[in-house]
């Protein structure tokens, strides 16, 4: 069953790569996401499957709206690039669509009703994560142990998003943090309440990061809590005195350190299947360092996003 899905997966990804017409590309993309979500469901993780399906539904509608707007603005753009091709090429291009249609049809008719999701991987992880990666939180064990390369790419995506926002909203005026205040007068009630809350927020973020491998939490959540502190700081003092550029450089620097630490840990055997000879304290040190770095990086990223939007509003 899963093998058949994976074959369809390969076919749809090949179709995405070789397709040149945008509308069909979007449809292939949503088919790809559908197959992905069914595969996630079969592997025993219905939450990820739901997220994938929702993102695919949203993204395909969004892409289609964008393309409609683009073509309505530029009417001279040639819509169909596949004119004047030979019949054989057209037939070859129709093959993946045909395979996908037939495959999805049989999938829906015969296999989807009454299928049992497999919990093999889940049980395997829950049995072995304490000896393999260490810590007591299985989520941390997965995202810093079994799936550490995925975590790297997730962090990279955040860096790319922040760089894109700062690049696209670039302006000469706001490059220097001159300590200027905005024209809106601050509310004293808000300032007083936030001064009471801020230490609790910082303590909570630090707790989430440092205790992330034992209880619920981790680098991403703790980093968000730390970034909330900077938003509160801005709301209290209403001052623009930290340069976005420097913080962005810090974020990239921390990301480089994360890559180096991951590489070292993988070579020493901490992140992958760890031999039993290595002491458990070593695993905990690895998890705490990674959580700390990821937390600082996420805090820097969201700080940059927040200050960037403030300065856009001021211009």
């Amino acid at each position, binding site marked *: 069953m899963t093998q058949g899905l994976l074959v369809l997966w390969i076919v749809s990804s090949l179709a995405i790569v070789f397709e040149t017409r945008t509308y069909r590309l979007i449809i292939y993309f949503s088919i790809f996401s559908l197959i992905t979500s069914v595969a996630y469901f079969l592997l025993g993780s219905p939450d990820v499957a739901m997220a994938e399906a929702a993102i695919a539904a949203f993204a395909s509608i969004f892409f289609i709206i964008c393309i409609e707007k683009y073509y309505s603005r530029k009417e001279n753009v040639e819509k169909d690039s596949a004119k004047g091709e030979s019949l054989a090429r057209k037939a070859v291009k129709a093959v993946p669509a045909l395979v996908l249609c037939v495959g999805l049809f049989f999938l829906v008719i015969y296999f989807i009703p009454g299928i049992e999701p497999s919990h093999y991987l889940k049980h395997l992880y829950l049995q072995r994560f304490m000896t393999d990666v260490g810590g007591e939180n299985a989520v941390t064990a997965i995202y810093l142990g079994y799936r550490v390369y995925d975590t790297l790419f997730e962090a990279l995506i955040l860096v790319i998003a922040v760089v894109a926002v700062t690049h696209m909203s670039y302006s000469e005026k706001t490059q220097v943090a001159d300590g200027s205040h905005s024209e*809106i007068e601050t*509310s004293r*009630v*808000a300032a007083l*309440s*936030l001064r*009471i*809350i801020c230490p*609790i927020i910082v303590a909570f973020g630090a707790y989430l990061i440092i205790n992330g491998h034992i209880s619920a939490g981790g680098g991403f959540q703790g980093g968000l809590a730390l970034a909330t502190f900077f938003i509160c700081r801005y709301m209290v003092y209403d001052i623009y005195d930290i340069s976005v550029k420097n913080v962005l450089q810090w974020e990239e620097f921390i990301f480089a350190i994360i890559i180096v630490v991951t590489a070292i840990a993988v070579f020493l055997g901490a992140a992958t299947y760890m031999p039993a000879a290595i002491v458990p304290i070593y695993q905990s040190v690895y998890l705490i360092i990674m959580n700390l770095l990821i937390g600082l990086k996420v805090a820097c990223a969201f700080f940059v996003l927040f200050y960037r939007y403030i300065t856009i509003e001021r211009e």
Partner: protein
Amino acid sequence: MGIENIWQLIGNIIIGFGVFCMIFGAVSLFVLKDFYPRILVASKIDTVGLLSFVIGFAFRHGLSFFTGKLFIILIIMLVLNPFVAHILARSAYRSGHELAAEAEEGEKS
């Protein structure tokens, strides 16, 4: 009736008061038609309802580590809920949102 039962009774009464506040707040959210009264009622649900729930649970449970956690939640909510309502009402006022009655008077005069 033992002393523990009396604590349980006091806790139940306070939780009942919280339920009363929450139900009337939820009803009046639909009855009231304007923005500022709705903010008033919503902050009342959050503050009075939640506070009486937390205090009632603390009475029912007795003095322990759990009660300490409850009081941390209580202090945070005591600060945060009025703050949220204040920020909402303030930004609505600053951006020029008017009461429906006042807007009608302004049109007449």
